[in-house]
């Protein structure tokens, strides 16, 4: 692109100021979170100290309190089950649908994008209330299955749309050729399309996992106390008697670190995934 062009001391000053601005913004996005991570490893006195403590003796007691003494080990298991299960459901239902939308002339194709957007754009509360009422009559409230289905309901549209988008990148000549050789649609789908779309599937899986793993309201209302996930466990640590900052921070670390690592690997696909392919 364009390089900084100014010459002389003024140009150099602007150059330095620009870099300083970028570094300052980066620090601003990072420092509050680092403070939270540090809090997770502090004991009570260090957390509540009126002078911010950068140097302290790290302790794992908050993790012990939350995950061994408390119930967050169960919530962690629920979180893993819900996120994995809903991603799998999304793939089982969504991959064939995406294939159909990409390769066949089916009705509803034009409305797909509208459907995707309307389930992504509707506020969580607008999606959770219908399911809450429905699950109440089915007895699915307070079960991992209920939360899993709820997360599938809001992720499915995104998975279908993204995968259709990735399937479109695969030239049609490939499957046309295989079909004239006598392959069945299923063979084309499973032997040609899916292997070629693997990078796209990885991006889609990570994004769907991320949304499910981070989700709060569905897990709180539908999971309730019976199938609470990690995020849904947060309000339980904000009690009238006080806020358990240490444990909250420890749980936050456990919630955040795995997805930060996963997302780091798919950085390039992230832009495309989060803008429905509008920006590649």
């Amino acid at each position, binding site marked *: 692109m*364009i390089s900084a062009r100014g010459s002389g001391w003024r140009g150099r000053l602007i150059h330095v100021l620009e870099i300083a601005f970028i570094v300052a913004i980066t620090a601003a*996005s*990072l420092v509050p*979170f680092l403070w939270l991570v540090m809090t997770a490893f502090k004991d009570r006195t260090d957390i509540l100290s009126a002078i911010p403590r950068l140097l302290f003796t790290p302790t794992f007691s908050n993790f012990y309190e939350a995950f061994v003494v408390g119930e967050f080990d169960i919530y962690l298991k629920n979180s893993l089950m819900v996120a994995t299960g809903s991603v799998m459901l999304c793939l089982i239902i969504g991959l064939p649908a995406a294939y*159909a939308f990409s390769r066949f*002339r089916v009705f509803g194709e034009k409305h797909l994008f509208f459907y995707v957007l309307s389930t992504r754009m509707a*506020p969580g*509360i*607008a999606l959770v209330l219908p399911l809450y009422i429905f699950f109440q009559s089915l007895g699915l409230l307070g079960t991992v299955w209920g939360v899993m289905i709820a997360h599938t309901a809001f992720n499915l549209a995104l998975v279908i749309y993204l995968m259709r988008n990735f399937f479109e990148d695969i030239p049609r000549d490939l499957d046309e050729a295989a079909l004239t050789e006598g392959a069945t649609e299923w063979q084309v789908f499973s032997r040609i399309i899916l292997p070629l779309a693997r990078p796209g599937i990885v991006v889609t899986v990570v994004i769907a996992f991320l949304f499910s793993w981070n989700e709060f309201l569905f897990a709180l209302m539908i999971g309730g106390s019976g199938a609470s996930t990690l995020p849904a466990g947060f309000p339980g640590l904000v009690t009238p008697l006080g806020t358990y900052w240490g444990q909250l921070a420890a749980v936050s670390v456990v919630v955040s670190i795995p997805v930060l690592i996963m997302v780091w690997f798919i950085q390039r696909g992230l832009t495309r995934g989060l803008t429905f392919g509008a920006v590649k």
Partner: protein
Amino acid sequence: MRKTAWGGYAWLGPMFLFLLAFELWPFLVMFDQSLHFLNYTQPAKNGQFIGFDNYRKAVFDDNFFHSIRITLLFLVVALPLEFLLGLAVAVLLSYHLWLKRFVLPLLLIPMILAPIVVGLTARLNLNPDFGLIGIFLRDIGIATDGLLSSGTSAFFTIAAVDVWQWTPFLTMIFIAAILGMPREPFEAAEVEGANRWHIFRRITLPLLRPIIIVGLLLRLTDAFKTFDQVFIMTGGGPGASTELATIFAYKVNFASWNLGYGSAVVGLLFFISFILTFVLLKLMTRFGRRPLT
């Protein structure tokens, strides 16, 4: 496109079943509920069919109206800031590309965090007794009781937290778009000796316009959904100063258990987001890269 019409529908079968069972049907059940009286405080009247009374009540409910106004103000304060900051960082990064590799992954952290973690991070940092930012503000004499303790400052704080969380999203898509631009116009301008400001105004900004529109519209609809962060930071308070429409709808349903009325409120929110989505789709197909090719 293959013409085998009926074969195609078999592939869509599971999707249709799922949509019918878990999206369309629950929605109809909720719509039905919105036409009935249902409130656990008055069990005697429960189940009575009252037509569109709940909707009429919602439209004239001052609290609902207030929450819609708070939501609009929230959008009006947060979005322009996110746009300006996001654009500034993206353009500056494009001048210093060697920084991008280190800076961008770090910048993305706030938007990858669970919204509930974002809210908690803000609450912890802003605490006037032991939070990093809270102590600093108290020491210089601003907000000695913490930013979340008074209505006005709490409102601007939730907007600021949204800026903190989502500016990186705009930076991310703007830098991707800038780097994907054709090089010729830039080279031609440089040969003619145009300065950076001119290049930005005359070339970068016009080429970026479709992406700016897409990005802002996605932010608009996403910000409309904001719930978790505000729920854990203020719960809508103090008073009702941060009570977004989503928080209001939550309270009516799951705090007052006024489910009949609550269904109507949620129905209206659904309607608003439906219209927003429709507008978004129209504008995206018009200005953006076509979503369906």
